[in-house]
């Protein structure tokens, strides 16, 4: 897959919650990634849905790239970059 195809394909779902420090850090990393590539971001506050809340309350931040790669918890920038095929 070429870089331009990657850029078109990146669909990112970001599960987060207000007051989550690791989520703020993950948000900063996503902004850094945005400087390197383009993606479509869907940000979901886990408190908006009880089912999602139960699923992710002890895992956030959770970033799902292209519905297949999951990066979560204390996220390392290298792992996130790899999910975007940047490293």
């Amino acid at each position, binding site marked *: 897959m070429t870089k331009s195809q990657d850029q078109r394909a990146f669909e990112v779902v970001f599960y987060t919650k207000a007051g*989550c420090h690791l989520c*703020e850090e993950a948000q900063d990393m996503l902004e850094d990634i945005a400087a390197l590539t383009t993606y479509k971001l869907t940000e979901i506050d886990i408190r908006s849905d009880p089912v999602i809340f139960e699923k992710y309350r002890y895992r956030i931040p959770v970033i799902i790239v292209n519905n297949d790669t999951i990066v979560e918890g204390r996220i390392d920038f290298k792992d996130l970059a790899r999910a975007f095929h940047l490293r």
Partner: protein
Amino acid sequence: MAIREINNSHPQSYAIRRKTLDRVMNNTGRVIGNFLIEYWALMITCALGILVFAALSVPFLSYFGLDGISKRIFFALHLVCAQIPSHSFYIFGHQLGMCERNFSIYTAMFIGSLIFVLSNKRIPGIPWWAWMLMILPMAIDGTTQMFGLRESTWELRVITGTLFGLANVWFALPLIQKTILESLPAQSLNGKAPH
């Protein structure tokens, strides 16, 4: 003549200054040494207490809207803990500053050292084999989880972490105190017999 006088007096004044400096250095060293001998355990207890209090304060600060301070403390505690969300306790829906295992370790160490200080540093230590026995459960639990052989539970993390923390202070602190007392001259003991 005047020059000869100055030349003669210089070594004397230098010697006086040197003696004064030596005396000041010795006294300062003695004061610091005595302070450390007397309060070393209390200093360790305070440091551990600050760590535990800091970890506990994170969710409370977030709950009360003090996110700026909470965030700083949270990221400072990353120096001593991986802070994995799925391995952490939550208060008011906010993650503690340390994971379950580390929080148990530091809390146990804090309580253990506090008891040691309150006993006037008189609690006898455990032998090395008891220390090994007490840290073994955490070594097994942590290692098998780390290599993906199994997943631990919060109960196991708390129990094994508590055993590990208690073992460390129960082994090390009395040993340090014993070593200090044995290395002091007899007149410095002020009537305290070594344990």
